[in-house]
């Protein structure tokens, strides 16, 4: 704002006509008479009166309560079963596995947990694994990945981003693929479900592993180096596997459509959770036909290949079975929240109405001081 009070234009400015013949009638400086310049733009002037505010409260109340009830009922109809298989207790079948852990153990530790479902699960059943106290949202963890590499970029494959440190190069000085802490800590327990007939025969329940990742992730965001049809083993030749992994990325699955970076388990893991307690989709149990429930009532066994250590940070591992509805999975909070907010709004509306009737001044303009 270093305005100079002199403006060369002023020197040039029009001279008043009174004192000299030079001052011909210049253009009038009268401002234009437009609604904008005169601040007369047509406008809508809403005002908070009892007539507008109180109905708003009632309407919100009346809309929210039914929604909430609907949500609550829907949520209650969803069947969900959860089992913790961390193995904290001595009594737990997985206790041993949780105790003897080392990343390098070649012989997998297996444990099986029996459970029973009281009610049959009718439609498709989704199998989740849940982790608690796992800080997948820690900044250093979140940024420890290289999206270019995961997108199949060949340069990034050999030169991973610095963000991946300290999981950037392996012990053999080769770049790690996939690099970074997220990939390195990929969940690698294997869960298998067996249905135990009343006559004690175990049937393995088929778990579908296709379609558990987002379409965009699987088809756009994640791509194998050199396209999906090339020889993965060759592509990953110059790379080292993540430190914690037992096998390299190109051996994640036998199916070439689900191997390497586009392995759906891997993609799901790479979509980091917002909160330290989270669940991720593991498998889907497809409904066979309309006649039989997907998971009938009865006894089951969960067979866990226990690879993933969580005890060091007091984490928990869970397996969740759930059906879903139009609004997603079981989430009673949403319904309750809607009912609560709706009722509070309605109640507030009533209180405001009373206050307004008792104390409010309704358009008495007589007391406006001049």
């Amino acid at each position, binding site marked *: 704002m270093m305005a100079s009070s002199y403006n060369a234009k002023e020197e*040039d400015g029009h001279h*008043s006509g009174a004192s000299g013949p030079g001052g011909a009638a210049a253009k009038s400086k009268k401002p234009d008479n437009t609604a904008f310049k005169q601040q007369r733009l047509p406008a809508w002037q809403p005002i908070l009166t009892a007539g507008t505010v109180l109905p708003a409260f009632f309407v919100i109340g009346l809309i929210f309560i039914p929604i909430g009830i609907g949500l609550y009922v829907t949520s209650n109809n969803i069947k969900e079963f959860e089992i913790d298989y961390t193995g904290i207790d001595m009594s737990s079948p997985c206790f041993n596995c949780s105790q003897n852990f080392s990343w390098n153990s070649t012989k997998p530790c297996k444990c099986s947990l029996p459970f029973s479902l009281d009610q049959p699960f009718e439609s498709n059943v989704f199998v989740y694994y849940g982790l608690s106290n796992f800080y997948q949202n820690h900044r250093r963890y979140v940024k420890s990945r290289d*999206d270019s590499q995961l997108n199949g970029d060949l340069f990034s494959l050999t030169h991973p981003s610095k963000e991946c440190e300290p999981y950037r190069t392996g012990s053999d000085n080769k770049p790690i693929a996939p690099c970074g802490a997220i990939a390195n*800590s990929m969940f690698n327990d294997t869960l298998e479900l067996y249905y135990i007939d009343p006559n004690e025969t175990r049937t393995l329940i088929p778990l579908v592993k296709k379609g558990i990742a987002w379409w965009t992730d699987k088809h756009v965001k994640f791509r194998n180096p050199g396209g999906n049809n090339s020889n993965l083993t060759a592509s990953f030749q110059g790379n080292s596997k993540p430190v914690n992994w037992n096998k390299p990325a190109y051996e994640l699955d036998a199916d070439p459509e689900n191997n390497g970076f586009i392995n759906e388990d891997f993609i799901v893991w790479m979509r980091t959770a917002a909160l330290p307690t989270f669940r991720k989709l593991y498998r889907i149990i497809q409904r066979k036909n309309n006649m039989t429930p997907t998971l009938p009532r009865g006894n089951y066994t969960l067979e866990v290949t226990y690879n993933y250590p969580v005890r060091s940070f007091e984490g928990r591992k869970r397996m969740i079975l759930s059906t879903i509805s139009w609004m997603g999975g079981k989430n009673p909070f949403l319904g309750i929240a809607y009912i609560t907010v709706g009722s509070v709004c309605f109640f507030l509306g009533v209180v405001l109405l009373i206050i307004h009737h008792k104390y409010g001044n309704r358009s008495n303009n007589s007391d406006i001081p001049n």
Partner: protein
Amino acid sequence: MAAKWLRMLVPWRGGWTPRGKEPRPGCAEEERHVRANDRLYNDKFSYADNRIKTSKYSILTFLPVNLFEQFQRVANAYFLVLLILQLIPEISSLSWFTTIVPLVMVLVITAVKDATDDYFRHRSDQQVNTRQSQVLIQGKLQNEKWMNVRVGDIIKLENNQFVTADLLLLSSSEPYGLCYIETAELDGENNLKVRQALTVTSDLGADIAKLAEFDGEITCEPPNNKLDRFTGTLCWRGNKHPLENEHMLLRGCVLRNTDWCFGLVVFAGPQTKLMQNCGRTTFKRTSIEKLMNTLVLWIFGFLICMGIILAIGNTIWEVKVGRAFWAYLQWGELLSNAVYSGFLTFWSYIIILNTVVPISLYVSVEVLRLGHSYFINWDRKLYYGEKDMAAEARTTTLNEELGQVEFIFSDKTGTLTQNILIFHKCSINGTTYGEVYDDFHHKVNITEKTPCVDFSFNPLSDPKFRFHDSSLVEAVKVGEACVQEFFRLLALCHTVMPEERSEGELVYQAQSPDEGALVTAARNFGFVFRARTPETITLYEIGRPVTYQLLAFLDFNNVRKRMSVIVRNPKGEIKLYCKGADTIVFERLHPSNEDLMDTTSEHLNEFAGEGLRTLALAYRELDEDVFGEWMERLQYASTVVGNREELLNELYEEVEQDLMLLGATAVEDKLQEGVPETITCLSLANIKIWVLTGDKLETAMNIGYSCNMLRDDMDEVFVISGHSSLEVARELRSAKERILGPSCAKLSSAGKSISSSSDSVFEETIIAEYALIINGHSLAHALELEVELEQVLLDVACLCKTVICCRVTPLQKAQVVELVKRHKRAVTLAIGDGANDVSMIKTAHIGVGISGQEGTQAVLASDYSFGQFRYLQRLLLVHGRWSYRRMCKFLCYFFYKNFAFTLVHFWFGFLCGFSAQTVYDQWFITLYNIVYTSLPVLAMGMFDKDVNEHFSLRYPSLYRPGQLNLLFNKRKFFTCTLHGVFTSFVLFFVPYVLCFSAVRDDGAHVSDQQAFAITIATSLVIVVSVQIGLDTDYWTAVNHFFVWGSLAMYFAILFAMHSDGLFSMFPSQFPYIGLARNALTQKSVWLVILLTTVVCIMPMLAIRFLKTDLRPSLSDKVYLLQKASRRQHPQEQSLKRVRRTSSRRSAYAFAHQQGYGELITSGRNMKFTASASTPNLSAPPSPALSPPAPVQNMSCTGWIGTWGGGGEEELGDVDSTGESPGVTDDGAGKTPTAEITA
């Protein structure tokens, strides 16, 4: 070639250094030597050439200089530091672009603004620099561009041309080397001034050959900014000729009524007096801006506190949880130390949370103010048609302060009054004329309808002149000697220049409106001043031409307070005619005038009581011998170099004795249109109006009554006019006691702290109305001698409804403003029109200039300018109020939205191990402030209004909240930040609870970090949009467009950012690919967003409703009324308030004052009402020589062009230390000199 290119890009002189720091080669110059027509010689001194440069940058230097300037601002520097912090990988919690994009946008917007400003400056520079002028080069007149004119060149100017540079006038087309100029651009006076060439050079005429040979050498003062002074000598052909301002044509003037003239360039370009006068304007800041800066500091503090809390949290987390988590999250070695990790986290959080200090705040505020300024400029209701003058906001940074004004300091002349004077009454030989009586000898109030005297007998009369008392015309016609002599004096003794455009169409160029009025009166009464030469004055005395020889001219000055002419009439009689302040003239009367003097002074009292301005007239017949002898001495004295002025004064004194009194004149000072109504309205708005005037007490009081400032029903009017500090102290204390009651006064004198606190309480409780009128000399005592007295003065003044300070100097005006500024935390506004108001205008928080009769100096120094006092009402009550409201609402919302946005990260910190992980997408952080939320709030800040203009003017109390700082203060700030904190809390925790176990309808989880981010971000954008919707009272199409547009923009950008295309190009910058498609198609996400929005908004809605319903503010009430009245009767004319003003012609001021006659006769308060406030003492009164003497023509310059400013505010018995026109008040601003010279 290269040099040529360089020169095109970089103006070669001064280069890129900003103006003011420019290395001026003439800076150390002690004396300037210029030789005409000798460029070689003049080049030795490397004087500046005539190129001017007001621009700051050139193409090459723009970027570095502009960036350097911008980074000097604290906010920009802060963001630069943040940017650097972000480059440290251990700390960086945000990508570099989140800071750099807004920063670059801010820098670019500012740079574009600076660049356009500079472009226009370049263009106008260019335009001025390439003007053509005729320069005498090598014996030929050649057309040259202005910028190529050099010091020492001889230039030919033609009529109506601008003067190219500061020139020494050599010769002109007019006789005696006279030349007329208009100096409106220079000092704002648009009357003609006369300059005269030295006799020796005027003989050169238009002879090119002679001019080309002219090789005079000028030795003169170095460049300076004094417009009214020039000293130097011209050395030519071995003779030395003194040079003065009268020989100079200054750049910026326009040549008038002169066919051509030749001049020698003395100062060129940046060294001209015009350019030297262009100081930088001081930068004023509004109180809101100061508060804003404080708040930003607080926010910094808050930011650091949050950083510390989170850093401590991080340390604890690392120790308790993080260590155990190392299996999955290995740190580098450094980070294994938890404390060090905490330290780094602190900086990371500073980066993340930096958005609580909004980078766009300052830019947005600037934009808003600019918009508000334009609204003022565009307002047709502030347009003054008569002068074709629209209001102008010359400073764009003060608008909101217009809504907080508590004190108005107003000049009187030209501000409250029109400075148009009308010959209203006179007293001739003991008889008053001018009153009209009806058949029953009752005085008739003169109105528009009162019949006027018919002047048709006089073909030369001025048709606009109105006079109502026909007896005076009768007296003239009858031929009463005294009456004729009276008008003859008025026609002879003055400094008016006649201009007869065509036969009989006379126009007078008067130095002061008083003189104009008097000469016009004489003209109408048959004594037409028709023509003048340096030695003669031609009158048409009742149709008969009579030529008087002007023998001597005894000029006016502040000490003499009179002027005289000595003329020889055709009969050969020598007469001295004198007009001057009554006291001065009365002292010099012949003893035989005793009786007449008494009667006349009675009449004078009457006139003064009516607010009329008076002059006494007298004459003396001189003996030929006495005069001859005196004339000789005068001629001798005028050649003396040393104490010339003293000698001349003595001689004048000697001849102005034994005068015969003729009578007295009374002219009326007309009020401006709408002044009383405006003052009433403003005082209803609780604005205190103080009138500071140079006028004498009675006139000031009278104007006070006619402006409704003083009223008959006031409880008491205190007049402080003590001559010693003790007296003043006693008067002030007693006044205070009268107001507060004795007990309180005792209390206040006991302890100052008590008094100041109790006073404010009393101010509110005092119902009785008081007025304070204080004289300049008393004010001097009160202001300067004792600090305690100052406090008492202020207390009393603030307890009074009306304060009038009369006889104050320009400096005192500034001191009074300063006093209030210092002791009261209130916004002051000074309004004035003349040079004498400049200091006051510059001192006050807001300076308003009225472009009036006294020129444009006040306007040039002011922050706002317009044509009429009455516009002040609209400026404050409408524009000021709106600006203030808008700015406050804008700030509240701005802080709210940034807190709501940023604090989500704080809450998230507790759940992500205090790792400084952001909740939102980085692009969202980048764009939130500048794209998603900036325009709606700008639209609100630009267009919002609650009550329309008619109601704002009708209910002035609506202005009160601004004065009390109610709409934005620290408490408000806390409320809106708390609101922001609450919103951020809801925004985070509602989705937190709901997303905890939420699952998509295809079974995939939604509690992933990206989906969580988009849920919160979308809720946030919707919540702040709804909130701005609630805040906006006035929804224009623009508001709709911006609010809906911003929302649409958000979704458009969201989908674009999450598109496959962008990801495939920059996979690492856009990791959110596909998110919008996947998340925003989920019903549960929308259900969460809806719930969050309702939870955020409904409590606010309830609180607002309760507020307006239970405790509606005045604006709420008026707003309802406005709505109701619009429905009922659409016409708004009925709202106009008609207020009868008290009759101006009743002698209120007189009737209310005891001992008035004593005051008059003592002469202390008498004033001389002839002319200018700023006589130029440096111009010596030059005697006109009798015809036989060689023609020297110095006389012309004696009467024309030496008096500045005009107007009546001469300072009576107070020494004038006021600024001369065009000179800044720096000189006068230092030493308080208001001594009494009585």
